[in-house]
């Protein structure tokens, strides 16, 4: 399992990559592995606004349905539409081609509440024990 250093992580197993006032958001390698084969992804529409911890999308494996939570507040500027026809991309490349949305960040202070790669790794270690 990998946890890139240039990303920030949420307790709900989303990652955030910050470039200026835009955040790219996806689910972590740990999350995709726990879910198993992802067979369906429900994406939000462009322009939708979410507050931190709102459900902005759904990821389904063969057996289960999981909500995806907004790690920070913001407005969706782009959703990764190829996931609709190729949900397996989330398993294959969760930090790259498997990004889920790009958001305009509405409150940069919230980024401070996210974890670093090291902190996240320790967090999941604790969670899986």
């Amino acid at each position, binding site marked *: 399992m990998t946890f890139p250093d240039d990303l920030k992580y949420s307790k709900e197993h989303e990652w955030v990559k910050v470039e200026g006032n835009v955040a790219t958001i996806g689910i972590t390698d740990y999350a995709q592995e726990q879910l*198993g*084969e992802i*067979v*369906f992804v*429900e994406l939000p529409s462009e322009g939708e606004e979410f507050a931190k911890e709102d459900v902005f999308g*759904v990821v*389904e*494996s*063969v*057996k289960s*349905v999981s909500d995806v939570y907004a790690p920070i507040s913001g407005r969706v500027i782009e959703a990764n539409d190829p996931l*609709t026809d190729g949900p397996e991309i989330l398993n294959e490349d969760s930090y790259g081609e498997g990004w889920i949305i790009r958001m305009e960040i509405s409150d940069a202070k919230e980024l401070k509440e996210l974890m670093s790669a090291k902190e996240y790794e320790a967090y999941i270690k604790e969670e899986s024990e």
Partner: protein
Amino acid sequence: MKTPLYEAHKKAGARMVDFAGWEMPVQYIGISQEHRHVRQKVGLFDVSHMGEIEIRGPQALEAVNYLTTNNVPSLKDGEAQYSVLLNEQGKTIDDLIIYRRAHDNFFLCVNASNKPKDLAWIQDKTEKKFGNQAIVEDVSSRYGLLAIQGPLALSVVEKLSSVQLSAMKPFSFLEISLKGDSPKGIPVLLSRTGYTGEDGFEIFVPWEKTALLWETLMEAGRSEGIAPIGLGARDTLRVEMKYSLYGHEIDETTNPLEASLGWIVKLDKGNFIGKDELIKIREKGVLRKLVSFLMKDSGIPRQGYSLFKDSTQIGVVTSGTLSPSLEKAIGIGYVTPSLSKVGTEIEVDIRGQKKKAEIVIAPFYRRRENHDIS
């Protein structure tokens, strides 16, 4: 609780989950891949968590016939049948397979999650009506259970058998020894049954020989490409066949007539628990019917989602998944009888959005038969 194969599953890379108090493998490499492996080749399942109950004695046959809905007197030695246990209200306590060893010796295989309840029920009803003429015993801790399923299952098991198995009819069983590490072999109850829609066997084996049988079958099936299969694929395989799963299609709120199980209800076989209620239901007609449906819009139906027709709720989803064989989302659910016809367009409420689906003929998947006409 753990089956004798717990360590073997972990070593094989299984993800373990709790199922009715048992640590069971839900998947090894991936549910869809395992599912297709069973459809195309052969897979091995550990289902040792299932419960086994024996009923023996001069009135064992009468007792089993009284407790269950199917026609027990029609069974010959070495034959099995699918059936249900009902309460007096005609509601389903459990579904089960009944094996007749002899007129005074029956072996029942029940769901792990229901075993304590089934056992208490069976003991109570049998004792009251048959006294010491039929003795009930929980033998679950004595038997492991493996299922070998798929088009190549027969050729794998035949390698271990000194008797020919190809002539075995579905729902027949043999008590034989399979070749193992000792000259005596591994004693098994080998049944031509399964829960996948494929050819194959379910094999009851002494608990302490379960791991040996697992290894022996994995070794014997190497050239056929045998693979271990988890409970995840076991579920998607049975959904494609529209086989009921307790807690989904059937439970203590459902009767077998609405659950498409009328074929195992024999009202002319003599008295049985729940019969009076079923006669009334048959006269009045069922209030809902179990149907299978194929999604037309995107989205996967899941247990508990509501079914609609023209903005009126008409029923509820009992099971749903993405079918690995069809690569389409499929579901099973109860609907109003007048809207249960094949071809009826319905809607599934998926997270507040109405998604189109169509009622289709079950099963969703039919296996290719071997007789090639070309």
